[in-house]
């Protein structure tokens, strides 16, 4: 009994002290941590694990990258619980800027949305050319469609598409909400033989992970645009606007834009994100 007590106390003291020092070591930077709230689709791709360590090494900031859906990211930004956001929900971003929550918004990269379905494609979406036509076909034939249902950027686009084609699927029994991230929703669609809307990056990653070919419609005009938003600092003085600015500048720099453009080429055959910090005007035309 006595020896086990001693070893418990030893364990406790040893690890507490060690953890304390390892934490203070990690946060030894005088510049203070930057809270970077990012959308899950970018985080899950692994891109940030390549970029953030570079930024930390070169600029001396410690970045705390937190992955959540775009909806939650924007709420955290409004509450000033984040210093900088990386999101893909243009309507909400514009509102965020108009209402004065952000100090700067920059578009950094984009990819496409794809409507994805089972290999044998019972709804025949591969005969269509746009996402809207594909969704209309799914609704007509009542094929099972999985919605994220989590206010993420992808979910917002999906809701917009349904309303633009004048269909309200929310009460239909072929329309199901998963409440999961994009990857797991794709996995569920694959397991259930259902259709869903995905960003092209997660689609590429998961079709490789699931070792399968799904049927899909890539809508060249339905762009999935990612922007960084610097959050206006809060009164409490615990924000880090300098860090946010540095990270935003870093992400649009030519060198990093090149890294973004090459990311995933070796593993997935094509790049997951297309850098676009230098061609913002061009993108505005698309919208």
């Amino acid at each position: 009994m006595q020896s086990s007590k001693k070893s418990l106390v030893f364990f406790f003291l040893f690890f507490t002290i060690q953890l304390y020092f390892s934490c203070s070591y990690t946060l030894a930077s005088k510049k203070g941590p930057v809270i970077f709230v990012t959308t899950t689709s970018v985080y899950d791709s692994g891109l940030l694990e390549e970029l953030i360590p570079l930024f930390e090494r070169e600029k001396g900031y410690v970045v705390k990258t937190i992955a959540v859906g775009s909806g939650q990211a924007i709420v955290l930004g409004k509450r000033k619980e984040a210093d900088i956001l990386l999101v893909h929900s243009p309507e909400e971003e514009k509102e965020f800027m108009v209402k004065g929550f952000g100090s700067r918004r920059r578009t950094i990269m984009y990819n496409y949305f794809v409507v994805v379905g089972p290999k044998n494609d019972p709804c025949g979406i591969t005969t269509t050319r746009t996402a809207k036509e594909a969704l209309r076909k799914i609704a007509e034939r009542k094929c099972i469609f999985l919605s994220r249902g989590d206010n993420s950027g992808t979910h917002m686009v999906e809701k917009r598409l349904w309303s633009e084609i004048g269909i309200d699927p929310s009460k239909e029994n072929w329309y199901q909400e998963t409440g999961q991230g994009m990857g797991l929703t794709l996995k569920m669609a694959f397991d259930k033989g259902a259709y869903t809307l995905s960003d092209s990056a997660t689609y590429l990653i998961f079709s490789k992970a699931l070792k399968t070919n799904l049927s899909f419609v890539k809508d060249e005009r339905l762009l999935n645009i990612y922007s960084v938003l610097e959050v206006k600092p809060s009164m409490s003085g615990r924000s880090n606007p300098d860090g946010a600015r540095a990270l935003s500048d870093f992400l649009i720099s030519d060198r990093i834009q090149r890294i973004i453009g090459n990311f995933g080429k070796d593993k997935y055959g094509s790049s997951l994100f297309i850098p676009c910090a230098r061609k913002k005007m061009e993108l505005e035309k698309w919208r």
Partner: protein
Amino acid sequence: MEIIFDGIKKAFILISNLNSEVSDVTLLSIKVSGIATIVSVFFGILIGAFLALTNFPGRRILVALVNTGMGVPPVVVGLVITMFLWRNGPFGFLEILYTPWAIILAQILIATPIVSGITLAGIQHVPGKLKIQIKALGATRIQFVLLLLRETRFSLFAATMAGFGGVISEVGASMMVGGNIKGYTRVLTTATVLETSRGNFDMAMALSVILFCLTFIINQLLTFVQQRERRK
């Protein structure tokens, strides 16, 4: 099926190669959940013993609260703590959100009711005659409590194991208050969730195997201490 075997195979490869990322995540899990368990055992036994040995109005409500606390979902604890620790929240000045300390705090709140509840049940299970006997032999109050705890040591070990099992396996709170930051607050469970959402099912499986083995080894150690008197 293939993925499961791949995962188990990968787990052994990762362990035998001492993959630094995996060993960091594993070590952090041990540290965080170990510290949280020790603190919860301390407070849990205090609370459990207090509730078992005293009588005052409102005691039953407290006991009911402890028993409810045993079943509160970690994600609820995580959500509440996150809101308290937000930098513009009431405890924002501590600046511990998204650090290992926040995970430890959340896990203490998760495990303490578990330890209290089992301790309480264990002490109440001691026959009343024994309590009278100890008092009759002239034990002081502190001696009385220590003797009772000695009598209930099997329950106390069970409480420790249940508390540890509760926190090492919990993912909701660690994810929310820790933020799953690579190399800083990523623990085994949150890493498993991340690898799953990245489609790395074999890696997720490998992490699960490591988590299972770790839990097994620690419970094996505690069980060994708990049961060693039986063999005498």
